């Protein structure tokens, strides 16, 4: 186009530069136009399980199942896993059962809380004492009301 | 006075809460001046189209030259007639909005069709100009489209503005046609009134042709065209004046008693009306008496008489409108909140703008050789 063109011309470099400029601007605009698609695809934040009266019902565990020391069970609250157990000295405890290592659900094993996936081990305080877990478990405030258990965030 | 409730059964809206930005008389004056210019442009453009139609009937070199000239200036005339139509419409809405807006809605469906008609007529004039060398075949239909379009617009204007002056008809019309699909056909003054506005159009275009013919006498080798152009122009002046006088007479005859006695009662306004007639008739004298000659002077004389005559008739018409509306509004009683600053700004812009334009007009026209139609190439 440049050579055979009988007209004056700032030369190819000028045109290349112009093309690059336009190309960049176009790319920016198209990116902006894709924003609705991004918003459409980006997921909504999950609901807060403690929304409302600040506590969540524990599903899958009846108070009776953790009545005696040494008893423990896995259940769920607001769609997340929880492990509830009664310590040898009779305290009722609850932790979010998601292992801090790879997200398996941990299990209460009398003297410890154990993760079957990679052998992550926590003591009954939820501290990570052996194996890969980098952090302690997330503790939860658990209260029994009649036959049903409720958990709420630990106020710290 | 501007409270609609005064008139039982007539839903006249109150005057706008903002009030007037300048004394009514001043606004009336501006409206009057610009409307006169508007009508001159209307008559010139419509006349040009009429004369082009006439020139097509039995084409000969002279008529083709006239048609070519008129065909070049008609689109310009049209765009100025629209442009000069804006301020009077603006000012009439300022003063008589209560009446104008109401009547416009009542005939809304037709009123809005003025816009497509404008585009049709204006577009047709350009199409006519741009196709004249390429496709002469379609020139006739295009011209007729322009002519009918312009006449329809004139009819719709008169229709709406007479309805604006007769609020008594409103409520029935609206109840029957809330979509505005109706016209104010019960009004006897419409056609005569249309003639008072448009009757002079052959004359207005005629004087221009006539002047051009006299200029052409200078150009060598075009004497035949020059002669034909002059006589055509002079005839057109005669015809226009005749139609107009008839129209005005019919208009006065069809007016309701109030306004009619105002015009025939022998007072100031009888004089004004008579003056209008006399001036327009005076335009005939140069057309009848003038001898051949290269100076456009007689045509200019005749044209001036026509414009002044038309101007005085518009003055009369303004007074007649007040007479129509005397029970509903008294302009002097409308609250005024003057915007002097804006008024000055407007005036200054007007003076500077016109001066600037005229300066360049002269500068450009000086380069155009005699007798050549202004052209784009």
């Amino acid at each position, binding site marked *: 186009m440049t050579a055979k063109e009988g007209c004056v011309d700032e030369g190819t470099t000028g045109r290349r530069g112009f093309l690059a400029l336009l190309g960049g601007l176009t790319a920016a605009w198209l990116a902006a136009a894709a924003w609705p698609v991004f*918003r*459409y*695809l*980006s997921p909504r934040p999950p609901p807060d399980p403690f929304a409302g009266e600040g506590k969540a019902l524990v599903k899958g565990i009846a108070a009776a199942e953790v009545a005696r020391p040494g008893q423990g069970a896995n259940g769920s609250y607001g769609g997340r896993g929880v492990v509830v157990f009664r310590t040898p000295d009779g305290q009722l405890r609850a932790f979010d059962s998601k292992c801090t290592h790879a997200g398996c659900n941990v299990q209460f094993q009398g003297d410890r809380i154990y993760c079957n996936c990679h052998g992550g081990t926590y003591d009954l305080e939820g501290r990570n004492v052996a194996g890969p877990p980098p952090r302690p478990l997330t503790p939860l405030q658990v209260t029994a009301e009649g036959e049903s258990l409720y958990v709420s965030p630990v106020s710290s | 006075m501007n409270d609609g409730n005064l008139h039982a059964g007539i839903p006249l809206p109150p005057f706008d809460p903002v009030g007037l930005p300048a004394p009514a008389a001043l606004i009336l004056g501006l409206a009057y001046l610009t409307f006169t210019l508007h009508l001159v442009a209307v008559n010139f453009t419509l006349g040009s189209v009429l004369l082009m139609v006439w020139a097509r009937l039995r084409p000969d070199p002279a008529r083709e030259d006239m048609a070519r000239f008129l065909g070049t200036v008609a689109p310009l005339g049209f765009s100025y007639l629209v442009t000069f139509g804006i301020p009077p419409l603006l000012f009439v809405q300022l003063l008589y909005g209560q009446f104008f807006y109401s009547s416009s809605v009542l005939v809304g469906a037709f009123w809005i069709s003025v816009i497509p008609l404008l585009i049709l007529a204006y577009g047709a004039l350009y199409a006519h100009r741009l196709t004249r060398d390429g496709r002469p075949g379609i020139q006739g239909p295009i011209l007729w489209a322009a002519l009918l379009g312009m006449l329809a617009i004139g009819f719709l204007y008169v229709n709406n503005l007479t309805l604006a002056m007769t609020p008594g008809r409103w409520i029935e019309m609206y109840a029957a046609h809330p979509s505005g699909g109706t016209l104010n056909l019960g009004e006897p003054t419409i056609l005569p009134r249309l003639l008072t506005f448009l009757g002079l159009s052959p004359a207005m275009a005629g004087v221009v042709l006539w002047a051009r013919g006299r200029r052409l006498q200078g150009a060598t080798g075009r004497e035949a065209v020059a002669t034909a152009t002059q006589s055509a122009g002079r005839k057109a002046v005669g015809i226009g004046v005749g139609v107009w006088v008839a129209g005005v007479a019919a208009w006065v005859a069809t007016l309701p008693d109030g306004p009619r006695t105002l015009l025939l009662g022998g007072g100031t306004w009888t004089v004004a009306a008579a003056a209008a007639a006399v001036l327009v008739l005076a335009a005939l004298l140069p057309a009848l008496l003038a001898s051949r000659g290269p100076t456009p002077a007689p045509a200019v004389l005749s044209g001036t008489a026509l414009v002044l005559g038309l101007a005085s008739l518009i003055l009369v018409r303004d007074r007649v409108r007040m007479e129509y509306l005397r029970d509903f509004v008294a302009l002097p009683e409308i609250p005024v909140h003057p915007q002097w600053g804006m008024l000055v700004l407007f005036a200054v812009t007007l003076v500077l703008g016109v001066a600037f334009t005229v300066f360049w007009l002269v500068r450009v026209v000086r380069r155009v050789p005699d007798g050549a139609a202004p052209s784009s190439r």
Partner: protein
Amino acid sequence: MSSDLSPIPPEAEPRLPAPGSRAGRAARWLLARYPVWPIVEHLAEKRVPRHRHSAWYAMGGIVLFFFSVQVVTGILLMVYYDPGQPWQSVQRIVMEIPYGALVRSIHHWAANLMILAIFLHLFSTFFLKAYRPPRELTWVTGLVLAGLAMAFGFSGYLLPWDELSFFATRVGISEIEKAPLVGGFLADLVRGGPDVTVATINRFYPLHVVVLPLLILGLIGAHLTFVQVQGVSEPDSFRALPPEQRKYHKFFGEFLVAEIPVWLALGVLLVALAALAPRALDPEANPAASAPEGIKPEWYFLSQYQALKLFPGSLELLGQALLGLVPLAMVAVPFWDRSIPADARGRLATRLGIAGLAGLVAMTLWGWLS
């Protein structure tokens, strides 16, 4: 060391980018592994004749554009659509998901415009007589593609599970039911039972998002390959011209590039339509409720719907049979009207085509107004 890399054909060398440049190296790397130069050359040769009717050549591309819009928006809708609770999930899309209403409306409008574009493509091909040998199969695959597009429309229409879609589907399937002998069985097969229920959705959904897409992609491939191999057909008027007066666009690089702005404009048009006339979601389908007033099939089924009304009662079967003949006749055309330039048959075909088009438009309008 020996290698199985194939040499770059000499005739290719001058046409490739400079050996030094990145593009040049990439091109040679590929050509050494995939010796497709003859194909590349063939495609580069491909050209589109320039004449009064050239604009119609763009229709195919336009259909393809709308189809790709359908693929993208369709995938987006699948992200949130749930055949288990169809109406609720669509309501969630238009009510809760950001820009969900927009995506759904675009899917709706692109579907309709695609079918419209297919009609234009079909009739322009017909009247330019592009179906004549050697292009019979291009024509036939085109017809099947048109049928598939309609099937897309019919299956997708049910998925929102609102009043309109429910009754429209019920009526539509009942047409199948009227077919002799196998009708009832087929209808049950399609519905997954004696009536339209959520079970029907569980059949239409995979049909709409898996089966039909697979079929249509394959056929589009064939259709386009045929066109690429045989090149664009030239109307008789163009062939009649002396060679020096026959002007051409290059297909790639010229014709296609010039079409991009048109696609862009159509894309904007889709958003504009979605902005001005979003697709409404009617109340959830209630099999017990009375059908809403003025219910009608989508416009592209209206003509058949109206035509069948002409055959009341026992005649209905006849009507169906006649309607069934139409596609068969269309398939038959290229095997019957073969001569270039057009002969008596060709002219007759054109007249029949005009009659058919007029009938289609008339029936559709009639159905739309009645």
